[in-house]
């Protein structure tokens, strides 16, 4: 299990489209991913739960990946968030 903290920097945060891009990518991994934000932990493969977590631009989140491809999954998750989740 690996854990990392990161701040969301795209202007919409985990709104519909960015969260959709994120969960679609995460679905490709075998490991599980959970995201803790604003005191709430949600499944990182679920768009609906991500929306319910109200993650905004500037929110610090903690990502936890666990499973056989956890390292690759974490790298992908971090690079997606750092690159702005599909926002130009």
């Amino acid at each position: 299990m690996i854990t990392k903290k990161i701040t969301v920097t795209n202007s919409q945060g985990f709104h519909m489209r960015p969260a959709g891009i994120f969960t679609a990518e995460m679905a490709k991994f075998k490991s599980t991913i959970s995201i803790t934000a604003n005191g709430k932990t949600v499944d990182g493969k679920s768009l609906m739960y991500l929306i319910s977590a109200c993650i905004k631009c500037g929110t610090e989140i903690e990502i936890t990946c666990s499973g056989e491809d956890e390292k690759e999954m974490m790298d992908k998750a971090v690079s997606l968030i750092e690159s702005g989740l599909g926002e130009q």
Partner: protein
Amino acid sequence: MIKGIGVSGGIGIGTAVVIKQQAASYEEHAADPAAEKNRFHQALEQFCEQTEKLAEEMAQSAGEKEGEILRGHILMVKDPFMQSQIEEQIDAGSSAEAAVDFACTLFIQMFESSGDELTIQRAADVRDIRQRLFELLTNSGSSALSALPMGTVLVAEDLTPSMTAQMDKAAIAGIVTQNGGRTSHSAILARALRIPAVLQVENAAGRIQNGDKIALDGSSGEVWINPNSEQLAELEEKKKSYEALTAELRTLVGKPTQTADGKQAELCANMGTPSDLPAVLENDCEGIGLFRTEFLFMDRDKAPTLEEQFEVYKKVVTALEGKPVIIRTLDVGGDKDIPYLGMKQEENPFLGFRAVRYCLKNQALFHDQLKALVMAAAFGDLRIMVPLVTTVTEVREVKAMIASIQAECQEEGISFGKTIPLGVMIETPAACMIADLLAKETDFFSIGTNDLTQYVMAADRGNQEAAYLYSTYDPAVLRSIERIISSAHTSKIPVGMCGEAAADPLLTPLLLAYGLDEFSVSAPSVLPTRRTIARWNMPEAGQVAEHVRSLSTAEEIQTYLESVQK
């Protein structure tokens, strides 16, 4: 006539079609889970197919962004957790309808209890998904929407994205709903499709009957049910002139703001809350000339935190994508009721302890606001503006605070704006008289004509006996404006104007001739102001200014300006 809130401008006249969403009735339980799952998956497949098609149509008729709203519905419904919730329910003996209802309700409640505006709005999407899955499961689709007669005024409790996508847009003359706010999907879609719309009309679907003649004004929020022929003729007239005007204004989107002979000016918008952003951006402003921050402090029990302010400032600066955003620091006084600020009732609140005077004496509060601004300045072209300045000392004190906050940020290792233009509002006779001194200490001026007029004329426009003196056309006010602009230009700093006068077409030639650099007006006034500026050339504007200098009273000046108005 009944009233709601106008969210999409224009006059709509037509015949009511009332859409009532039926409460779904279904069997709670089903005996054969495999068969129910099959029904659910078939409905799901149809849902995705239809929604993709609607999204495509929507993207073409209303824009890519509106199509995305519908594509979002596919993403939501395909969420593996949503699906597993539904399947679990079916396995436990529920019907497909009951299972869909259960899972959707779960997320609706979760979103609605979040307390976050954007997340709460997503609950409406889940409702829409639930409704359409019900329709598909029971084969009860609202086909009425795609076969509407021309000239329909659509009346509904709420306009869902899928309803909007299914309806024949060309047939819709107007939209009236009971729910939805200025930033709801209904409002955004109506604006994108340029259909006049009035939302939040109480009990609209109950009061209005199918076949009623309906007229609505999407700007004022007025709705007439079966108007008489006189009202109707008046509204038809209004509709014609509105359509001619918007067609003309639309040709100005994306065009530079300049006079007929090519002198450019900057045309910005004023805003009061972040919810003004869509209107501001749609109207093609070149920046924000005044972002008032009072809304952050009003209707609450304690001051907003630094983080809360930072988020808001950053949101606005980011949305403007590098265009200048002038944010005014807190402008409050004893006339505004914000109990936790501890302001006393004053005999003369407009000459009292207010705006920058209050902020400089309440350093902790002011520090938080300035720090939030300094931090947000890292994300775009943010400029800070101080209201009600009367002395150079005030400017120096604010500057010193900003410098020490920047040092603080540096030490704490947080990103911040390193060079933030600092400007002052010129709205007092004192600031006008020492404009040359203030110009040496600041990066820009903005003339607040509402307060400037009141202070120069020593007349409260809210006081009926004195209001006749309150006129921006008065030579005392016009001379002040001219003097402020020329003092700024001597020190080579730009001057904007953010009061109502900036949007007054009578004053446009004078402001051009005086050399005003930036006009900042309310969002709906942006394009009309661009049009007025384009009608003048500099020599003509100069002649108007010269003639005005020879006139002695506000009435003479106003009459003359009306006679030369373009």
